[in-house]
Protein backbone atom coordinates (compact mmCIF):
# COMPACT_ATOMS: atom_id res chain seq x y z
CA UNK A 1 0.00 0.00 0.00
CA UNK A 2 1.28 3.42 -0.83
CA UNK A 3 1.40 6.22 1.71
CA UNK A 4 -1.62 7.83 0.05
CA UNK A 5 -3.62 4.65 0.54
CA UNK A 6 -2.74 4.39 4.22
CA UNK A 7 -3.78 8.00 4.77
CA UNK A 8 -6.95 7.42 2.81
CA UNK A 9 -7.88 4.33 4.80
CA UNK A 10 -7.61 6.38 7.99
CA UNK A 11 -9.60 9.30 6.55
CA UNK A 12 -12.20 7.11 4.94
CA UNK A 13 -12.56 4.99 8.06
CA UNK A 14 -13.20 8.00 10.23
CA UNK A 15 -15.59 9.46 7.66
CA UNK A 16 -17.52 6.23 7.20
CA UNK A 17 -17.87 5.60 10.92
CA UNK A 18 -18.99 9.19 11.46
CA UNK A 19 -21.54 8.83 8.66
CA UNK A 20 -22.99 5.70 10.24
CA UNK A 21 -23.06 7.34 13.66
CA UNK A 22 -24.76 10.35 12.05
CA UNK A 23 -27.72 8.31 10.88
CA UNK A 24 -27.97 6.23 14.07
CA UNK A 25 -27.28 8.84 16.75
CA UNK A 26 -30.03 9.62 19.24
CA UNK A 27 -29.19 13.27 19.71
CA UNK A 28 -29.71 15.73 16.89
CA UNK A 29 -26.86 18.00 17.90
CA UNK A 30 -24.48 15.05 18.04
CA UNK A 31 -25.74 14.07 14.59
CA UNK A 32 -24.89 17.54 13.29
CA UNK A 33 -21.40 17.29 14.79
CA UNK A 34 -20.92 13.87 13.17
CA UNK A 35 -21.93 15.54 9.92
CA UNK A 36 -19.08 18.02 10.46
CA UNK A 37 -16.61 15.13 10.83
CA UNK A 38 -17.92 13.37 7.74
CA UNK A 39 -17.78 16.50 5.59
CA UNK A 40 -14.29 17.33 6.80
CA UNK A 41 -13.13 13.83 5.92
CA UNK A 42 -14.67 14.17 2.46
CA UNK A 43 -12.68 17.38 2.14
CA UNK A 44 -9.57 15.48 3.18
CA UNK A 45 -10.30 12.95 0.46
CA UNK A 46 -10.41 15.78 -2.06
CA UNK A 47 -7.04 17.00 -0.83
CA UNK A 48 -5.66 13.50 -1.11
CA UNK A 49 -6.65 13.11 -4.75
CA UNK A 50 -5.14 16.54 -5.40
CA UNK A 51 -8.41 18.41 -5.95
CA UNK A 52 -7.24 21.33 -3.88
CA UNK A 53 -9.73 24.02 -4.82
CA UNK A 54 -12.62 21.65 -4.31
CA UNK A 55 -11.30 20.72 -0.87
CA UNK A 56 -11.29 24.33 0.28
CA UNK A 57 -14.66 24.96 -1.32
CA UNK A 58 -15.95 21.96 0.62
CA UNK A 59 -14.55 23.30 3.88
CA UNK A 60 -15.88 26.80 3.29
CA UNK A 61 -19.33 25.94 1.99
CA UNK A 62 -20.19 22.75 3.85
CA UNK A 63 -18.29 22.93 7.10
CA UNK A 64 -18.50 26.69 7.29
CA UNK A 65 -21.94 27.59 6.02
CA UNK A 66 -24.24 24.60 5.78
CA UNK A 67 -23.37 23.25 9.22
CA UNK A 68 -24.10 26.64 10.76
CA UNK A 69 -27.43 26.68 8.94
CA UNK A 70 -28.26 23.18 10.18
CA UNK A 71 -27.28 23.99 13.76
CA UNK A 72 -29.34 27.16 13.73
CA UNK A 73 -32.39 25.34 12.44
CA UNK A 74 -31.89 22.70 15.12
CA UNK A 75 -31.92 25.50 17.66
CA UNK A 76 -35.00 27.15 16.16
CA UNK A 77 -36.99 23.94 16.05
CA UNK A 78 -37.50 21.55 18.89
CA UNK A 79 -34.53 19.21 19.22
CA UNK A 80 -35.93 16.08 20.81
CA UNK A 81 -33.69 13.35 22.17
CA UNK A 82 -34.30 9.64 21.93
CA UNK A 83 -34.74 6.94 19.37
CA UNK A 84 -38.53 7.07 19.23
CA UNK A 85 -38.53 10.81 18.71
CA UNK A 86 -35.99 10.71 15.89
CA UNK A 87 -36.65 7.46 14.05
CA UNK A 88 -39.84 6.15 12.52
CA UNK A 89 -41.14 2.61 12.56
CA UNK A 90 -39.45 1.51 9.34
CA UNK A 91 -35.99 1.14 10.79
CA UNK A 92 -35.64 -2.54 9.85
CA UNK A 93 -36.74 -2.05 6.26
CA UNK A 94 -34.53 1.03 5.97
CA UNK A 95 -31.52 -0.89 7.25
CA UNK A 96 -32.30 -3.64 4.78
CA UNK A 97 -32.48 -1.18 1.87
CA UNK A 98 -29.30 0.60 2.97
CA UNK A 99 -27.38 -2.64 3.33
CA UNK A 100 -28.71 -3.83 -0.01
CA UNK A 101 -27.54 -0.63 -1.71
CA UNK A 102 -24.12 -0.98 -0.06
CA UNK A 103 -23.70 -4.63 -1.04
CA UNK A 104 -24.83 -3.98 -4.58
CA UNK A 105 -22.51 -1.03 -5.02
CA UNK A 106 -19.52 -2.84 -3.50
CA UNK A 107 -20.17 -5.85 -5.72
CA UNK A 108 -20.36 -3.65 -8.82
CA UNK A 109 -17.22 -1.73 -7.87
CA UNK A 110 -15.23 -4.88 -7.21
CA UNK A 111 -16.54 -6.43 -10.38
CA UNK A 112 -15.66 -3.55 -12.64
CA UNK A 113 -12.84 -1.54 -11.08
CA UNK A 114 -10.88 -4.13 -9.14
CA UNK A 115 -7.17 -3.32 -9.21
CA UNK A 116 -7.55 -0.06 -11.13
CA UNK A 117 -5.31 2.68 -9.86
CA UNK A 118 -5.67 6.43 -9.89
CA UNK A 119 -2.44 8.12 -10.90
CA UNK A 120 -2.56 11.34 -8.97
CA UNK A 121 -1.74 14.51 -10.80
CA UNK A 122 -1.94 17.90 -9.15
CA UNK A 123 -4.68 20.07 -10.57
CA UNK A 124 -4.00 23.76 -10.64
CA UNK A 125 -6.89 25.99 -9.79
CA UNK A 126 -6.22 27.97 -12.95
CA UNK A 127 -6.95 24.89 -15.02
CA UNK A 128 -10.23 24.44 -13.20
CA UNK A 129 -11.15 28.08 -13.83
CA UNK A 130 -10.31 27.81 -17.50
CA UNK A 131 -12.38 24.67 -17.75
CA UNK A 132 -15.37 26.34 -16.09
CA UNK A 133 -15.25 29.53 -18.12
CA UNK A 134 -14.45 27.94 -21.45
CA UNK A 135 -16.48 24.77 -21.51
CA UNK A 136 -19.18 25.26 -18.90
CA UNK A 137 -20.14 28.91 -19.05
CA UNK A 138 -23.84 28.30 -19.54
CA UNK A 139 -24.21 25.85 -16.61
CA UNK A 140 -22.21 28.27 -14.49
CA UNK A 141 -24.61 31.12 -15.25
CA UNK A 142 -27.63 28.89 -14.71
CA UNK A 143 -26.23 27.86 -11.34
CA UNK A 144 -25.73 31.46 -10.33
CA UNK A 145 -29.32 32.30 -11.25
CA UNK A 146 -30.41 29.25 -9.26
CA UNK A 147 -28.49 30.48 -6.24
CA UNK A 148 -30.13 33.89 -6.49
CA UNK A 149 -33.56 32.29 -6.77
CA UNK A 150 -32.84 30.08 -3.77
CA UNK A 151 -31.68 33.07 -1.76
CA UNK A 152 -34.83 35.05 -2.47
CA UNK A 153 -36.99 31.97 -2.01
CA UNK A 154 -35.49 31.15 1.37
CA UNK A 155 -36.04 34.70 2.57
CA UNK A 156 -39.63 34.74 1.34
CA UNK A 157 -40.47 31.33 2.79
CA UNK A 158 -38.90 31.77 6.20
CA UNK A 159 -40.14 35.32 6.74
CA UNK A 160 -42.85 35.90 9.28
CA UNK A 161 -46.15 36.68 7.64
CA UNK A 162 -47.48 40.16 8.27
CA UNK A 163 -51.17 39.75 7.93
CA UNK A 164 -53.60 42.67 7.62
CA UNK A 165 -54.79 41.97 11.16
CA UNK A 166 -51.49 43.03 12.61
CA UNK A 167 -51.74 46.06 14.88
CA UNK A 168 -50.34 49.09 13.07
CA UNK A 169 -47.89 50.10 15.74
CA UNK A 170 -45.85 46.98 15.01
CA UNK A 171 -45.26 48.15 11.48
CA UNK A 172 -43.37 51.30 12.33
CA UNK A 173 -40.26 51.27 10.16
CA UNK A 174 -36.99 50.85 11.94
CA UNK A 175 -35.41 53.93 10.44
CA UNK A 176 -38.05 56.51 11.32
CA UNK A 177 -38.83 55.08 14.74
CA UNK A 178 -38.83 57.66 17.46
CA UNK A 179 -36.86 56.72 20.52
CA UNK A 180 -38.60 57.27 23.85
CA UNK A 181 -37.34 60.44 25.41
CA UNK A 182 -35.65 59.74 28.70
CA UNK A 183 -35.45 62.39 31.38
CA UNK A 184 -31.89 63.73 31.67
CA UNK A 185 -29.87 62.12 34.36
CA UNK A 186 -29.01 64.22 37.35
CA UNK A 187 -25.62 65.74 37.04
CA UNK A 188 -25.40 64.96 33.34
CA UNK A 189 -23.67 67.72 31.45
CA UNK A 190 -24.49 68.82 28.03
Amino acid sequence: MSAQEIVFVVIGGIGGIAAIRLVTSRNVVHAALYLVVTLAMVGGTYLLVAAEFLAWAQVLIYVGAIIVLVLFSLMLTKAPIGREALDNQQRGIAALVGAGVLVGLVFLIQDRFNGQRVHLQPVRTAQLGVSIFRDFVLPFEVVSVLLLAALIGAVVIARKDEGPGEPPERRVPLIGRREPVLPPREGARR
Partner: protein
Amino acid sequence: MIAALADATIRLPFLLIFAAVLFSAGVYGVLARRNGVLVLMSIELMLNAVNVNLVAFSAYLHQLTGQVFALFVITVAAAEIGIGLAIVILIYRNRETINVDEINLLKW
Protein backbone atom coordinates in the same frame (compact mmCIF):
# COMPACT_ATOMS: atom_id res chain seq x y z
CA MET B 1 4.44 18.66 -3.37
CA ILE B 2 4.18 18.30 -7.12
CA ALA B 3 7.34 16.21 -7.28
CA ALA B 4 6.10 14.03 -4.45
CA LEU B 5 2.90 13.39 -6.36
CA ALA B 6 4.67 12.38 -9.53
CA ASP B 7 4.25 8.65 -9.10
CA ALA B 8 1.65 8.55 -6.37
CA THR B 9 -1.20 6.17 -6.92
CA ILE B 10 -4.26 5.18 -4.97
CA ARG B 11 -6.60 2.30 -5.66
CA LEU B 12 -9.82 3.47 -7.30
CA PRO B 13 -12.09 0.98 -5.41
CA PHE B 14 -11.05 2.53 -2.09
CA LEU B 15 -12.52 5.87 -3.09
CA LEU B 16 -15.60 4.31 -4.63
CA ILE B 17 -16.31 2.12 -1.60
CA PHE B 18 -15.97 5.14 0.70
CA ALA B 19 -18.56 6.89 -1.46
CA ALA B 20 -20.76 3.80 -1.38
CA VAL B 21 -20.65 3.72 2.43
CA LEU B 22 -21.63 7.39 2.59
CA PHE B 23 -24.44 6.86 0.09
CA SER B 24 -25.95 3.86 1.85
CA ALA B 25 -25.76 5.64 5.20
CA GLY B 26 -27.63 8.52 3.57
CA VAL B 27 -30.26 6.16 2.15
CA TYR B 28 -30.77 4.60 5.57
CA GLY B 29 -31.02 8.04 7.16
CA VAL B 30 -33.60 9.32 4.69
CA LEU B 31 -35.73 6.20 5.14
CA ALA B 32 -35.42 5.77 8.90
CA ARG B 33 -35.38 9.30 10.33
CA ARG B 34 -38.53 11.24 11.09
CA ASN B 35 -36.96 14.56 12.09
CA GLY B 36 -36.95 16.89 9.08
CA VAL B 37 -33.52 18.37 9.73
CA LEU B 38 -31.99 14.90 10.04
CA VAL B 39 -33.55 13.89 6.73
CA LEU B 40 -31.94 16.94 5.11
CA MET B 41 -28.59 16.02 6.68
CA SER B 42 -28.85 12.53 5.22
CA ILE B 43 -29.54 14.03 1.81
CA GLU B 44 -26.35 16.08 2.19
CA LEU B 45 -24.54 12.83 2.91
CA MET B 46 -25.76 11.32 -0.35
CA LEU B 47 -24.78 14.40 -2.34
CA ASN B 48 -21.31 14.21 -0.83
CA ALA B 49 -21.03 10.58 -1.87
CA VAL B 50 -21.81 11.60 -5.44
CA ASN B 51 -19.17 14.31 -5.21
CA VAL B 52 -16.55 11.84 -4.03
CA ASN B 53 -17.37 9.65 -7.01
CA LEU B 54 -17.13 12.58 -9.42
CA VAL B 55 -13.77 13.66 -8.06
CA ALA B 56 -12.44 10.10 -8.02
CA PHE B 57 -13.32 9.54 -11.66
CA SER B 58 -12.04 12.98 -12.56
CA ALA B 59 -8.64 12.00 -11.13
CA TYR B 60 -8.85 8.54 -12.69
CA LEU B 61 -9.55 9.83 -16.20
CA HIS B 62 -7.33 12.92 -15.89
CA GLN B 63 -10.19 15.17 -16.93
CA LEU B 64 -11.40 18.21 -15.08
CA THR B 65 -15.08 17.82 -15.95
CA GLY B 66 -15.78 15.79 -12.84
CA GLN B 67 -14.41 18.47 -10.58
CA VAL B 68 -16.40 21.19 -12.34
CA PHE B 69 -19.58 19.21 -11.86
CA ALA B 70 -18.68 18.52 -8.25
CA LEU B 71 -18.51 22.28 -7.76
CA PHE B 72 -21.94 22.65 -9.37
CA VAL B 73 -23.30 19.91 -7.12
CA ILE B 74 -21.93 21.71 -4.05
CA THR B 75 -23.67 24.90 -5.18
CA VAL B 76 -26.98 23.19 -5.83
CA ALA B 77 -26.71 21.40 -2.48
CA ALA B 78 -26.23 24.74 -0.75
CA ALA B 79 -29.34 26.11 -2.46
CA GLU B 80 -31.26 22.96 -1.60
CA ILE B 81 -30.37 23.00 2.08
CA GLY B 82 -31.22 26.70 2.32
CA ILE B 83 -34.69 26.22 0.87
CA GLY B 84 -35.19 22.97 2.77
CA LEU B 85 -34.38 24.47 6.14
CA ALA B 86 -36.56 27.49 5.37
CA ILE B 87 -39.45 25.11 4.68
CA VAL B 88 -38.69 23.16 7.86
CA ILE B 89 -38.75 26.33 9.95
CA LEU B 90 -41.98 27.46 8.31
CA ILE B 91 -43.59 24.08 9.00
CA TYR B 92 -42.39 24.21 12.60
CA ARG B 93 -43.92 27.64 13.00
CA ASN B 94 -47.26 26.49 11.67
CA ARG B 95 -47.52 22.94 13.00
CA GLU B 96 -45.22 22.88 16.05
CA THR B 97 -43.59 19.72 14.70
CA ILE B 98 -41.05 18.81 12.07
CA ASN B 99 -41.64 15.08 12.08
CA VAL B 100 -42.02 14.22 8.43
CA ASP B 101 -44.50 11.42 9.12
CA GLU B 102 -46.93 13.79 10.78
CA ILE B 103 -46.98 16.22 7.87
CA ASN B 104 -49.45 14.48 5.63
CA LEU B 105 -51.64 17.29 4.39
CA LEU B 106 -50.85 16.50 0.76
CA LYS B 107 -51.05 12.73 1.19
CA TRP B 108 -53.94 11.24 -0.78
